[in-house]
């Protein structure tokens, strides 16, 4: 940490203007690299185990296209609106940023609601985490993603509060940018859940 912390570079977007911000953003990217491997391990576990259904139901018996598609569209759209929020932030518009963040938040809550309903539905059908290796790995993989989204929702709420309190500063811009990276990343993970869990489960 040198005097560089307070060196401003006016040509850059707000979130890159201080050395501290640049370090934080790079650090978060590397953290996302670790998250890729974390989810990869869960995918590996799922793909090794997903046909080992024991006496429980199979993926084909369980999954329903409509529910999955609604969740996918909600999360995909929220990733888009989150991108728009950053677009607004880089144009210096606090109101637009807040509005799009709020839309993102609502879409995220919608996603979680549908996912919880999906899980409850499965449990009512007798498909719990304890039923079979397939269901253990399914619930832990999809549940870990869901827990990440829930954490993201809470995180975003606190960032919105800070935006309202402090306005758009070098620091809050960085925080918004980092939470946006996190949010997009969760959509990246969902693309693979959609493909390797749901689509694959419905065809194999």
């Amino acid at each position, binding site marked *: 940490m*040198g005097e560089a912390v307070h060196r401003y570079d006016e040509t850059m977007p707000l979130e890159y203007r201080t050395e501290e911000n640049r370090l934080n953003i790079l650090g978060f990217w590397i953290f996302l690299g*670790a998250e890729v491997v*974390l989810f990869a*391990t869960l995918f590996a*576990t799922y793909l090794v185990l997903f046909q*080992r259904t024991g006496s429980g139901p199979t993926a084909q018996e369980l999954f329903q296209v409509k529910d999955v598609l609604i969740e996918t569209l909600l999360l995909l759209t929220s990733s888009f609106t989150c991108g728009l929020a950053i677009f607004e932030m880089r144009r210096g518009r606090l109101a637009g940023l807040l509005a799009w963040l709020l839309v993102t938040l609502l879409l995220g809550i919608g996603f979680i609601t549908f996912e919880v309903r999906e899980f409850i539905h499965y449990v009512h059908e007798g498909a719990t985490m304890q*039923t079979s290796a*397939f*269901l253990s790995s399914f619930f832990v993989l999809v549940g870990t993603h869901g827990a990440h989204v829930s954490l993201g929702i809470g995180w975003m709420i606190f*960032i919105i509060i800070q935006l309202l309190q402090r306005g758009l500063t070098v620091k809050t811009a960085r925080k918004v940018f980092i939470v946006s990276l996190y949010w997009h990343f969760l959509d990246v993970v969902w693309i693979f859940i959609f493909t390797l869990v749901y689509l694959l489960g419905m065809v194999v």
Partner: protein
Amino acid sequence: MKWSEFFVTGEPLIYAADVAIVLTMVGIVFVLTYFKKWKWIWNEWLTTVDHKKIGVMYIICAVLMLFRGGVDALLMRAQLTAPNMNFLDAQHYNEIFTTHGTIMILFMAMPFIIGLMNIVVPLQIGARDVAFPYLNALSFWLFFFGAMLFNISFVIGGSPDAGWTAYFPLAGNEFSPGVGNNYYAVSLQISGIGTLMTGINFLVTILKMRAPGMTLMRMPMFTWTILITCVLIVFAFPVLTVALALMTFDRLFDTQFFTMANGGMSMLWANLFWIWGHPEVYIVILPAFGIFSEIVSTFAQKRLFGYKAMVYSIVGIAFLSFIVWVHHFFTMGAGPEVNSVFSITTMAVAIPTGVKIFNWLFTLRKGKIRFTTAMLWSLAFIPNFVIGGVTGVMLAMAAADYQYHNSYFLIAHFHYVLIAGVVFACFAGLHYWYPKMFGHMLNERLGKWTFWLFMIGFNVCFFPMYFLGLMGMTRRMYTYSDGLGWTPLNVVATVGAVLMGIGFIVLCYNIYYSARYGERDMTGDPWNGRTLEWATASPPVHYNFPVTPIVDDLDAYWVMKKKQGGFQVKEEELKPIHMPSNSGRPFWISVAFFVAGFGLVFKWFALAIAGALFIVLGLILRSFENDDGYHIGVDEIKRTERAARKGA
């Protein structure tokens, strides 16, 4: 739950440990109170974000854990000295080899390496601290409380007893119904999170905070190895995180990942464990290579031979480390194709490693060698490590491995790489950088006693094990019968272990002796060093460098000394220095992790949730915190520098 189930009972050794623990805690409280040091320990240590102090705390913990793991080892050796011994029963022996392995790898080798890298890396790259000092403190305290949680298992609830690899189905509820393996899963998880954050922190630090002019190819070799180690940490530890989480789910919530019924696959655990486990081995050995490179170069008084080849070798080893994991379970039966591929990748590791060995030898060639203690450890490393490496290639041949697998041959092999590689490096690094940490040297005469005792003891202890393995003695057996012909070599091995123990005691005495009588390092550069850490005072002032050094070559400080007679600081160039504020939050968040973890171990979920809520509260408070650190004014820097450089 009854008290008699909560506390471990029935063993005189455990009661003695109980008494020792209580006395130690009372002793610490008494000393802190009597000398009125509570405020000091809180302000200077528990809340510090200074990388040097955090590094010192890591190393203190590592030495304590070396003691704990070493006592475990001596107990095992005592039990195995003669056939049909009843010193330890089977259960107790299982617990001891489990805690020995886990502690030595995760709570001794890892923190020792991380401690050295905390102290040295920012200094070597000319930085004032790491990229995220607050996170660094959190990393340390998570490691610390993870280690504490693991260590209390042997008096509260019972130790894990399924080996440090915790293979299923043995580690599952069916065969390990107690809380022991819960401790394993939860405490490794907590300290693993800390390690992951360290990896991210140092990766960013090394990539972004190097002094001007220090290109990647001018970085000191130790920093290079740490950079690559951090890459391994970042991409390997998440696998452990998941594996441990699945283990926790299986044990606490009856999921079916590694079970024997309902589709569970116990062998998947071994697969996941070693996807992390093999890179983990390189996470501890690569920094060791870095330490030896620095020491060999310094005491041969020559530039490191084949610097670029060294760099490419580390990168190559790191790359290969992710595609060799199956060699840990060739005998599982994955078939000839799988075994052949992993056999070949494993043998390929020997190529870059061989390159490095030759580079060290060529660095020594025609060097003006100074036989300091640090250098002795480094010189001893080369032949001893080669023995471990060559026997590793023997194990890498899948077909032959069916004979060696899980025998004492394997035990001997990995102790030859881990002790001759990592432990020798830790001791070498400790002697080498000790003046930088504490401002005084470790006594060289005592250091050499430690070296000879430990190094000879090590060979006496582990070399016979190769033969014991070939004679059929298998790993983890708690006793053996008479007439197998194993007794003489086992007696020899125990003698060696005792010699290593004596070596450790001499080291501890040396630390005490040197603190009182050791030669003070007034110059900051006692070894005629080559890299930037020697451009600072010993110990360095808290902001490390009054002005950022400019680097224009490899061996930056060496070149500086040749060109300008040292690191020159002009007082008119001084500017105010920005520093991060101390914080108590990393400490209490980690306490919350400990509490939550303890709740999980005993399935006291209310406690676990309470702990988790405190963790979340800590994160929220951090997010809302508006602390930009503080500035040190030019006048204060001038005063500090004059005081620090008075001796020079």
